[in-house]
């Protein structure tokens, strides 16, 4: 095969994207959505995907003007040196906080369900050290590993969801419109942060074999992930019904509840191991991309050496909130309400600026010449 060394092929890229965004079905997202719109929660991922499609489409279109340039270079080129720097810094800060709070969420899950007496800090440190080690190895390694485990990750998710359907009742998804159509649309636009990771993923364009691969991979992962989150949410709604609002992490409650017959009653550990591997991949990729951003911002060429120090900073931010409640109820919604809409606005503005500057015409002329 004609793979360039050090670059991601389509399958590696799609695996990373699916593991990064698809993992949201297994943390608190379904429960958060349920608290907002009750039994219509399964529509939100689909509708949000529909809404986020427009900025993402425009962004990818703009990005395709500049071959092998990442998001930050494009922003700087279009917005100018100073404004561009501020916008990039803003993106970096938001995504940094997102990483901190997401890793903290995962630590909370691990601690509350699996390692109940180990101090939070120890679990957090181990999680971060492993992710930092992976990120230090480089994106190529992350890609290979994610391609290795994606099959098992998805298979175990399907098995868990499949067994869960035995306990569920499809009637729970009614009344079909939940709190009303208007409410659903309003909240879908607020929840586009679910897909904000795709915006951040445009940072890795220079590491993907070609722009076409990136485009295709993003769309495959985008469509798949929106369906996966939606289906998972629907199954949790049908399984837990109204009590879903009371459970912070429905996937973990579900895998503790299901059993493979009378002789293998408690199976959550099988699912847990695979789930934790996807978590590692998710944060490894996140850390790498954040280091990449930092490197771009401050023109540091060997940004891979930044990863350990960045990881430490994220760890320190992540342990500030005292309890899991602060994270899920106060800090994460803050990031969620900010990140998605802001990324969408940036994408659209980028396209508009490119349009005004006549970059699309230039590209056309170049092609026709």
């Amino acid at each position, binding site marked *: 095969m004609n793979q360039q060394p050090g670059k991601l092929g389509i399958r590696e890229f799609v695996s990373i994207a699916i593991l990064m965004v698809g993992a949201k079905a297994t943390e608190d997202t379904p429960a958060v959505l349920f608290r907002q719109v*009750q*039994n219509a929660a399964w529509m939100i991922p689909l509708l949000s995907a529909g809404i986020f499609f427009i900025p993402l489409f425009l962004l990818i279109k703009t990005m395709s003007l500049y071959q092998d340039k990442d998001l930050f270079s494009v922003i700087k080129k279009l917005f100018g040196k100073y404004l561009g720097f501020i916008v990039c810094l803003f993106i970096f800060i938001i995504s940094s906080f997102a990483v901190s709070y997401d890793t903290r969420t995962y630590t909370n899950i691990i601690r*509350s*369900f*699996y*390692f*109940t*007496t*180990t*101090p939070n800090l*120890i*679990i957090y440190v*181990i999680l971060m050290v492993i992710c930092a080690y992976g990120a230090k190895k480089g994106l190529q390694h992350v890609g290979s590993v994610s391609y290795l485990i994606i099959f098992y990750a998805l298979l175990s998710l399907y098995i868990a969801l499949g067994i869960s359907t035995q*306990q569920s*009742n499809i*009637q*729970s998804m*009614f*009344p*079909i*419109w*939940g*709190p*009303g159509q208007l409410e659903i649309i309003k909240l879908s636009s607020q929840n586009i942060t679910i897909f904000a990771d795709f915006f951040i993923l445009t940072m890795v364009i220079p590491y993907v074999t070609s722009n076409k691969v990136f485009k295709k991979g993003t769309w495959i992962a985008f469509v798949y992930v929106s369906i996966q989150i939606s289906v998972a949410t629907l199954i949790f709604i049908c399984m*837990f*019904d*109204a*009590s879903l*609002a*009371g459970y912070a992490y429905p996937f973990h*409650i579900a895998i*503790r*509840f299901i*059993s493979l017959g*009378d002789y293998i*009653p*408690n199976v959550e550990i099988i699912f847990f191991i695979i789930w934790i591997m996807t978590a590692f991949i998710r944060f490894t990729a996140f850390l790498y991309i954040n280091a990449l951003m930092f490197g771009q911002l401050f023109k540091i060429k060997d940004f891979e050496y930044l990863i350990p120090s960045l990881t430490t900073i994220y760890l320190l931010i992540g342990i500030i909130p005292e309890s899991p409640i602060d994270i899920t109820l106060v800090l994460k919604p803050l990031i969620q309400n900010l990140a998605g809409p802001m990324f969408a606005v940036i994408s659209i503005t980028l396209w508009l600026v490119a349009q005004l500057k006549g970059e699309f015409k230039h590209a056309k002329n170049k092609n026709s010449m």
Partner: protein
Amino acid sequence: MQKTKTVCSLMLFFVMVILLTGCWDRGELEDKSYVIGLGLDRSKQEGKIKVTMLLANPEVGSMQGGGGSTEKPREIISFDANDFIAAKATANSVISRSISYDLLRIFVVSEEFARDPMFPSTFFEVLKDKEIRLNSYLAVSKEKAAQYFLKNKPRMETRPHKYFQFMVNHGIENGLIPDSTLFRYFQSAERGTDLFLAMYTTAIREKNPKIKREDEYMAGELNATGELDDTQFIGSAVFKNGVMIDKLTGQETRTINILDDTTNIKDILVNIPDPFSSSQKQFAARILKTQSNKVKMNLKGIRPKIYITIPLQFEIMSNPSRVNYRKEKNRQILRKHIADHIEQMNEDLLKKTQTKLKGVPYPLPLFAKKYFGTIQEYKKFNWGKSYLRADIHVKAEIDIVNYGKQTSRPKKVGE
């Protein structure tokens, strides 16, 4: 350089090994005592509860072909506590090993405590404990839970976790007890529209109970004699908003279980009055439920109408009046008779739920949800009140798959 690298990777390897022990959560089987059953009673002191723990000894029965230890298979300990989570620590003053709720299989609550309005607030603590699984069962005992565990001495299944697992599973398969997992309890309590059924059990046999039909008993009423356990699981306790309000007999529980598609009934053996016999003979039949019920509703108007179609397959197991089922006419009579019988039974029971229990003891309201566009409309409809006015029609679709062996009347001497 090469040397340092090797040393470094070796060091890394050892660090990994340390992680494998599980840090603070390192656990040893030898050191654990697993609570299989947890009993909850009202305490003499206001605001406290009496916790009873049935602890299993993991060593007993774990070895194949004897050679096991001579230790007892179980330990029972009762004491007063504020809740059953902190009780774990208190119990350690008596029990030598560390106590874990990981394998908790059954909660036994005394009827007295279950009827206490304070019960849900105590019981909802279950959700806070991370070790308790939602697939453990909730049972209501006629006597005090502490007494129940002491009296319950299974002869064949000395290991308590196996005993409860088998007892409960077979009870659910026969439909005589409801599938009352904690999961369903909280689901029903959160929904707030339907009632919850918990299995009813007792370890004290009634003296001189009446002899009834095979499934009309409550726990303790079955007059079984011989060399046996006194514990009986039959019938159910009805919970409204998390508090027990009433009881259902085994037969009523079974009818509800047939109506409820979410439970796991397998095949049920019943007696049905024989239409061909002049004396009150009954024939035995096996009921198989292979398809789900169809529920249709018309919720407009003051009296909502609910149509329930129950598809059932029957196997006729006995034929006391020796009717010839080769004749089409007899078969039709039988089918009609069974359908009438089932419909009557269901409608009577649903009538009882409307008048006496004031709520439906299975997730029927879920089927009403699809007739509404939004949650606001559904809430306005107010299932809890509307159900009491509803007109319920039950239709049984009987399919007799097997008429049993055709035996001819034995010839009498001299005929």
